[in-house]
């Protein structure tokens, strides 16, 4: 990725006082309020919060699926890739055709698509399943195809995918514990080998501590940044998880009816 060296180092994504209000008048709900957040290139940031903290809203805003009511979002990549809780693969396409789909939409030629899709499936260790359809794969395998597809979506014709940003909305929440554990380490391996920036939304403290370089805690209704933990990998995971859990519990308890 020589192209990244040539550009000035800017954040992969930068949120400046971002707010989001749904509805208007008396029924208006403030989902996000004055959120400042920066993800550096190649950084892995976990966004943590209880239900209703607007994590998914925030991710939708960054993905461009929705517009903020206030503030500004700056992206260095033209289009971030998104992974949802469901794999959401196209059921009529084989695994490799699913990975090819974003490449096709981006305008890649057939042979280049084949080649890149094969590489990406190899990256998520699913070369053997390339010709299978989603219903023939397990939940974990489907989510890995979705990961390969999301990575494919960061490719651009012309080859400049140095500033790829991957947005993940609780992608492992629907998986069983062992599969989730394996997929978390797969994700870390893929992230290390691709240098993609990741913004990972979760409500699971241990998942956040295990994956993230930085963990950002959001409050609920409205969502605000409550606290951040830097250098997460060098901390003692158990102690840090306890500390973050305590803070999360505090945030939730403020919502108890008085």
């Amino acid at each position, binding site marked *: 990725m020589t192209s990244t060296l040539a550009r000035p180092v800017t954040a992969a994504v930068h949120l400046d006082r971002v707010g989001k209000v749904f509805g208007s008048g008396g029924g208006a709900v403030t989902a996000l309020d004055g959120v400042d957040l920066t993800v550096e290139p190649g950084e892995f940031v976990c966004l943590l919060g209880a239900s209703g903290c607007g994590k998914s809203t925030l991710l939708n805003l960054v*993905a*461009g*699926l929705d517009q903020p009511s206030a503030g500004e979002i700056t992206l260095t990549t033209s*289009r*971030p*890739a*998104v992974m*949802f809780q*469901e794999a*959401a693969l*196209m*059921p*009529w396409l084989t695994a490799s055709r699913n990975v090819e*789909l*974003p490449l*096709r*939409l*981006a305008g890649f030629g057939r042979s280049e698509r084949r080649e890149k899709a094969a590489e990406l499936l190899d990256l998520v*260790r699913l070369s053997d*399943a390339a010709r299978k*359809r*989603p*219903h*023939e*794969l*397990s*939940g*974990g*395998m489907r989510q890995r195809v979705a990961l390969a597809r999301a990575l494919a*979506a960061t490719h651009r014709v012309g080859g400049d995918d140095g500033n790829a940003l991957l947005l993940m909305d609780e992608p492992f929440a629907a998986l069983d514990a*062992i*599969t989730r*554990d*394996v997929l*978390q*380490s*797969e994700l*870390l*391996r893929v992230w290390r080998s691709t240098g993609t920036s990741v913004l990972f939304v979760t409500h699971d403290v241990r998942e956040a501590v*295990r994956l993230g370089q930085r963990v950002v805690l959001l409050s609920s209704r409205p969502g605000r940044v409550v606290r951040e933990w830097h250098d997460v*990998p060098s901390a*003692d*995971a*158990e102690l840090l998880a306890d500390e973050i859990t305590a803070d999360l519990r505090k945030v939730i308890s403020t919502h108890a009816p008085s």
Partner: protein
Amino acid sequence: MPRPDQAAPDLDEAVGAGLDRLDTPTGARPASLRRRFVRGFLPPLGALVLLVVIWQILWAAAFWPETTLPAPLDVWAEFVSTINDGSVFGFIWTSVHRAALGFAAGVVIGTPLGILVAKVRVVRAAIGPLLSGLQSLPSVAWVPAAVIWFGINDAAIYFVVLLGSVPSIANGLVSGIDQIPPILPRVGKVMGAGRFAAARHILLPAALPGFLAGLKQGWAFSWRSLMAAELIARSPSLGVGLGTYLNDGSSYNSMPKVIAAIFLILFVGVAIELIVFRPLERSVLRARGLTTSL
């Protein structure tokens, strides 16, 4: 604390591979050709034989006069005579090519109409209910109007066939599009699919099962409408289709001819369904893992 993925990458890989192996759904093996024949072909054949036996018994008991209930053998003889003089192939060809042309035109009109109704709110509000209503209106009701507007000619017949098939085809596509899980268009959007790319790569293939059901029904309605039209609108210039043949039987008071015609109409309808639509539907559903029993 050492992170598990850093501690033992090899073991991790093995665990992952093991999970893949264990969690992969195991599909049932497709049944053998012989088994499928026994399961799929014998029951309807048995039902047919039973029907003919009951018919023969009723005829032998002579409850009704011969002119009302002919012997199965008389009907068979009538059928064989149309084969011997080759006329049956003419009837079938006249009707089937008309129905196929009408159906093809119905697909060309019904498909864009279905997309419009499904995706444009105003269009849906305006003609959605009308389209559903037309589906339950027997298209034979259009025959008098068609004859007055177009005269007794092919145009009148195609008009009736179109009004029979278009609503079913359009409605099938609408329900196919309505049943697409909302996450799929969202995925298309985040991958940067524009309106047309989304329609081509996501919307239409995702709606295909519903669309196919609509096509199947559209064919059935085309066939029915055509028979109604042929039965009513008669002219030497139109040629003799199956409906005309049925009408001839009725005019000559020849019950064997009438029953032979009814069987032929039924036979062609079922044959097209079995030869064209069943395999198409089966392969589409099987590719999506939507079927185990077909």
